């Protein structure tokens, strides 16, 4: 039969010596990205040229998290026993993204083809690469489809793939949350997010708000009723929720991280200054009040004093004090990013913020309710809150100044407070004096620690111990891996290439991120976690400065903010479902590591 086929070819191989086209004349490949984020590709072929179907391939060759979902291909025809395209074939490639991929992604698209001339010449295989910038917000996530990086374009293969039971990929917490919103039932969404908010209230993101709201309420001073305390707390929480919602919707729609943008030194300095000013007003140096004329203009009832200030504080503290990213927040952002539905996503965010704020309202009301009557105790309580305010101011400075500086400031603050409490006086109540003395000793230790070069608040005198350890049990010390710090995609790629075949943990970190510090001090310093993490390559992406390069790095992995932990398998492929967003305790983290 083969002979017969060959005999047939005889008729097509012409008598006269033909002039063969050069390859670039015979084949003209084209590919472009359309508005629907589909790749339109074709290989224009000259007269008498044909292309082999099985030699034609369309692939995405870089690992950008974007892959081919489906290829619409024309039907090939039988040509002497081979399936070929006798006229220019055009393809439409649908793309999809992996879980957790967002923003603009560069993809390298490769079009490979090989064909022959009817006049008796088979050309070399050729390939052409194209780079496209894909807006992944227009792509669907690859939740239900099996990953297929390349698809043979044969239509029969495609059909069989479609018939296969779709393999449900494990979802990350973030995506399950995004799915919750997609479910559409508004009541369920709001209640779920309110619940998430309540859980988040127990994280370090919300802790700094507790002294702020109590301080603000206490500073209202005399005439504060429980009702007013409640109203003030509600105003504070509402303002905080509005801030979270606006920041979240902006982040979801435009990928701009408003919170990170506000972590610039001058914002931090000025906000710290506000707290210092508040503190001094509590110490009774002066009274912080808006001018009466202004207050009466804003509201007719004189009772409104304080509300505006509290609202502003609530708004700003959400953005500046506690910029935390947690799974529910990221989930809502992903939903907004994917669907562009800012209303539903925003409502979810608002419900979550209210949830976060409920404990704050409780704190605020009790601060108002149990505030002692004016007198000696009252002075003491306001002083304590004044000190707390100063503490918040120093705590904020931690993000931008050296740890030794803030430690010295804490030491000074503690010392001053201890003396105020009467640590050095004879006529002090025994209880008060003991507390004051303990604080005094600790503060002195802090200052001594600073002078000795220690930066640990919990072990300021650790340098004494570490010397002893070195001299006695040095050999028992186990060396643990440290995070390798990077800030750009290039650095990451180099490291990934160097550590091929090993699993990698990529930790997005920023100095201003409270939960990141918590993660380091509680989880990463846990002995068991440490030894488990030794089997991974540890890379830390420092996004403190929020520069363009750092933003690009975050965008590449769809990271909304730190802390986010991304895991790579041995082939440097992101295990999307394994991503951890926000703080995680050592126990579940160990389990998580085991599941990798």
């Amino acid at each position, binding site marked *: 039969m083969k002979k*017969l086929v060959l005999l047939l070819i005889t008729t097509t191989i012409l008598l006269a010596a033909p002039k063969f086209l050069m390859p670039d004349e015979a084949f003209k490949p084209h590919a472009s990205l359309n508005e629907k984020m589909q790749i339109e590709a074709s290989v224009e072929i000259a007269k008498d040229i044909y292309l082999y179907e099985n030699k034609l391939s369309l692939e995405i060759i870089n690992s950008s998290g974007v892959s081919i979902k489906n290829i619409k291909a024309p039907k090939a025809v039988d040509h002497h026993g081979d399936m070929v395209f006798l006229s220019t074939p055009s393809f439409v490639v649908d793309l999809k993204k992996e879980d957790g991929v967002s923003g603009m992604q560069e993809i390298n698209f490769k079009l490979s083809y090989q064909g022959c001339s009817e006049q008796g*010449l*088979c050309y070399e295989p050729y390939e052409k690469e194209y780079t496209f910038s894909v807006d992944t917000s227009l792509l669907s996530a690859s939740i239900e489809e099996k990953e297929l990086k390349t698809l043979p374009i044969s239509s029969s293969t495609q059909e069989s793939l479609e018939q296969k039971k779709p393999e449900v990929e494990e979802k990350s917490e973030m995506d399950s949350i995004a799915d919750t919103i997609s479910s559409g039932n508004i009541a369920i969404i709001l209640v779920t997010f309110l619940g998430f908010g309540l859980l988040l209230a127990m994280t370090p993101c919300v802790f700094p708000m507790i002294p702020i709201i109590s301080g603000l309420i206490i500073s209202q001073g005399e005439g504060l009723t429980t009702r007013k305390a409640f109203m003030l707390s509600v105003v504070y929480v509402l303002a905080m929720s509005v801030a979270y919602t606006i920041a979240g919707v902006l982040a979801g729609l435009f990928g701009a991280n408003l919170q990170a943008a506000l972590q610039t030194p001058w914002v931090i300095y000025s906000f710290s200054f506000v707290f210092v000013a508040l503190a001094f007003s509590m110490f009774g140096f002066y009274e912080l009040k808006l001018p009466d004329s202004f207050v009466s203009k804003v509201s007719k009832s004189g009772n409104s004093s304080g509300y505006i200030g509290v609202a502003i504080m609530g708004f700003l503290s959400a953005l500046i004090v506690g910029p935390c990213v947690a799974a529910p927040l990221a989930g809502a952002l992903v939903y907004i990013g994917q669907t562009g539905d800012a209303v539903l996503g925003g409502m979810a965010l608002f419900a979550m913020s209210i949830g976060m704020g409920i404990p704050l309202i409780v704190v605020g009301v009790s601060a108002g309710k149990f505030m002692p009557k004016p007198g000696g105790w009252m002075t003491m309580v306001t002083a304590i809150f004044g000190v707390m305010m100063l503490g918040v101011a120093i705590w904020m400075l931690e993000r931008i100044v050296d740890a030794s500086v803030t430690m010295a400031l804490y030491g000074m603050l503690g010392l001053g407070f201890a003396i105020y409490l009467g640590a050095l006086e004879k006529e002090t109540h025994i209880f008060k004096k003991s507390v004051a003395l303990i604080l005094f000793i600790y503060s002195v230790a802090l200052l001594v620690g600073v002078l000795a070069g220690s930066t640990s608040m919990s072990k300021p005198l650790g340098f004494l111990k570490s010397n002893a350890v070195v001299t006695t049990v040095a050999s028992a010390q186990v060396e643990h891996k440290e995070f390798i710090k990077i800030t750009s995609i290039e650095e990451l790629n180099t490291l990934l290439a160097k550590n091929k075949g090993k699993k990698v943990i990529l930790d997005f970190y920023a100095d201003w991120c409270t939960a990141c510090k918590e993660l380091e001090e509680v989880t990463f310093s846990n002995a068991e976690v440490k030894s488990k993490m030794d089997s991974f390559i540890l890379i830390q992406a420092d996004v403190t400065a929020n520069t363009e390069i750092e933003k690009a790095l975050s965008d590449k992995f769809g990271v909304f903010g730190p802390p986010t932990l991304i895991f790579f398998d041995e082939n440097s492929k992101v295990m999307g479902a394994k991503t951890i967003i926000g703080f995680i305790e050592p126990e579940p983290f160990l389990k998580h590591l085991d599941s990798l």
Partner: protein
Amino acid sequence: MKKLILIFTLLTTLLCAGEIKWVDFDDAIEMAQKNNKTLLVMLSREGCPACEYMEDIVFTNDEVLKIVNKDFIPVHIDIYKGFVPDDLTYIGTPTFHFVDKNEKSIDTLVGGKNAKTFMEKLNAVIANR
């Protein structure tokens, strides 16, 4: 029935006809230096219908065989498996190079040809030598 006869004819042709004795490129150059013959280098590869056509139809043609075996040293290089000397350029397969004893390509034939055209080319190369 017609088909059967055709296949039968083709098979007998194949069995009765002589074969091309393909020679290794380096050996062929040595032989060329001794006999003052020209190399006929065929560049081919798998999955190339025109190459198959040349091997199965043209190179089994008695007249072609006669000329090739008399005046040329046939060399067959699979461009993916064998080594292709730099001088032997190609844009596709099959490509034929006529190579002299100094390993220089003196003439080229691009693409598959039927026996008649192919022989015309062979004769032209002989005439120009």
